[in-house]
């Protein structure tokens, strides 16, 4: 549905997107993962036809975004990052306006708008002014706008930014539902978000694509990489106990004085995130069984930076981009 080849975007001397290539197949939910300022929004804006690429080609449903921008834009529903809306309009007025703008035929407009409002859950605020809505509802109006013309491709820039945990859960559910009828591209800087919604993940860092693959691979790259423990008991005994735990690699004694010890146990890299988290449980159980007192447990790693480090290392190792 989307083909991006050697896409580059330059703002003066600043290289926002650097030679990025990828494809999105029909029915995919593609998660665009990267820290703030990585080039996610710029890439999505180019896909949506709001910005032109400096070089490279982007085809949306077979239409080049530069040469046949019009057809490309007809195939997408786009929700920009800040969800800009006209505050003076009522929700239903706004969606009717957007449906007309996106060329939904008059006869079908009402049905399309009603359908989008139902899917996005804004029926109860249909006659409220957008300016009076809460952030969560504004976000949903943005989603309703993105799907109102029933485009084959939906592009959502940071759909859960600024929402509370409940709203985040609802939005993720909505995105998964959208995935049944649309090809979805969404961006986020939160790792758990792509795990929750996406079927495929692109990791972008400083304008460069650092990894690409199905969500499971990214999930495996996440999770803790080591565990730090504060233990009451003989340091040497604690070290031996931890070394015997399944899933634990190298154990180092950070400091030990008298009967208190701080130890760091590396977790086996070949395990998935879930297995590594379980290894932490086994460490604690083993220490307790050996009669040692566990005072503190800290899981190390699992942040986005660790994932980048892990993924870029994988890419350098050869098995990276699949």
């Amino acid at each position, binding site marked *: 549905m989307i083909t991006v080849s050697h896409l580059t975007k330059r703002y003066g001397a600043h290289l926002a997107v650097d030679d990025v290539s990828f494809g999105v197949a029909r029915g995919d939910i593609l998660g665009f993962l990267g820290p703030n300022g990585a080039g996610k929004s710029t890439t999505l804006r180019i896909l949506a*036809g*709001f910005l*032109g690429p400096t070089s490279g080609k982007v085809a949306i449903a077979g239409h080049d975004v530069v040469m046949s921008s*019009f057809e490309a834009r007809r195939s997408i529903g*786009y929700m920009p990052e800040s969800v800009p809306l006209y505050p*003076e309009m009522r929700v239903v007025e706004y969606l009717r306006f957007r449906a007309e703008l996106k*060329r939904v035929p008059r006869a079908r407009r009402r049905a399309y708008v009603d359908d989008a409002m139902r899917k996005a859950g804004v029926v109860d605020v249909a006659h409220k002014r957008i300016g009076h809505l809460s952030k969560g509802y504004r976000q949903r109006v943005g989603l309703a*706008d993105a799907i109102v013309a029933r485009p084959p491709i939906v592009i959502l820039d940071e759909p859960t930014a600024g929402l509370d945990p409940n709203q985040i859960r609802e939005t993720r559910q909505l995105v998964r539902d959208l995935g049944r009828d649309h090809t979805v591209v969404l961006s986020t800087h939160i790792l758990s978000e792509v795990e929750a919604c996406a079927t495929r993940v692109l990791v972008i860092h400083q304008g460069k694509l650092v990894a690409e693959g199905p969500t499971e691979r990214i999930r495996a790259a996440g999770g803790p990489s080591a565990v730090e423990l504060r233990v009451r008991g003989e340091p040497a005994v604690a070290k031996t106990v931890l070394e015997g735990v399944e899933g634990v690699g190298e154990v180092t004694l950070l400091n030990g004085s008298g009967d208190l010890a701080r130890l760091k146990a590396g977790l086996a890299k070949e395990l998935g995130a879930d297995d590594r988290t379980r290894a932490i449980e086994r460490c604690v159980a083993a220490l307790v069984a050996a009669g040692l007192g566990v005072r503190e447990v800290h899981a190390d790693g699992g942040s986005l930076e660790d994932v980048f480090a892990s993924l870029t290392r994988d890419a350098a190792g050869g098995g990276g981009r699949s």
Partner: protein
Amino acid sequence: MRAFWPIYKRELFGFFVTPLAWVLIVVFLVVQGMHFFLLVDHFALELDVASDESPLSAFFGNTVLFYLVLFLLVPPMTMRLFAEERRSGTIESLMTAPVSSPAVVLAKYAAVMTTYVAMWLPTVLYLVILGRTGGVDRRQAASAYLGVLLVGAGYLALGLCASALTRSQFLAMIWTALVLLVLFTLGVGEFVTREGTLMHDVCAHVSVWGHMNDFASGIVDSRRLVFYGTMIAVPLYVATRAVDAWRWG
């Protein structure tokens, strides 16, 4: 061009839903009403009136009040057209819909022109009032309104262009006011430069005052039509190119 209609409707709605529109219209009508009253009062007391002078030609041409109110009106009417959408980001949803740049520019321009016409519409009552007490030359009145329409169309096109060229509404307003003022001042130059010099000719050609005097006396000069046609077309074209250029920023 199918995007023209929805954008046009939304612009009109967006303008009239704000208090700004109503404040502008009220200020405009109060000023024009006072202006009309003073003129009629003046002509009523005058014993010896020149044959080519009438309240109508004076209303549209001979006093400075007509332009001064446009200087105050046009910048706030046009400042928000693009600058507001760029500041709030709604331009992003607008331009990622299947719309063409000319459709966006023309729809916004048509909406602001409609507002302008709506503002002038109540002044047709003045003709009715004049018609009750004396004769109104209909062709002269039509010519005067054509002048009003053309001057307004030119000014609004300049204002729209300024709004497309800057991200700040305030700057758009200042730029528009400045350009209108420079144009007007150039026109005044007609009266202070020596006749026969190039400067005098240039000033006379761009003088809104002179143009309106002609229109208000019932003279429709093709040079004026070309002048205003250019003053409409060039800013609109520049605005269209500016909208296109945002993509490559």
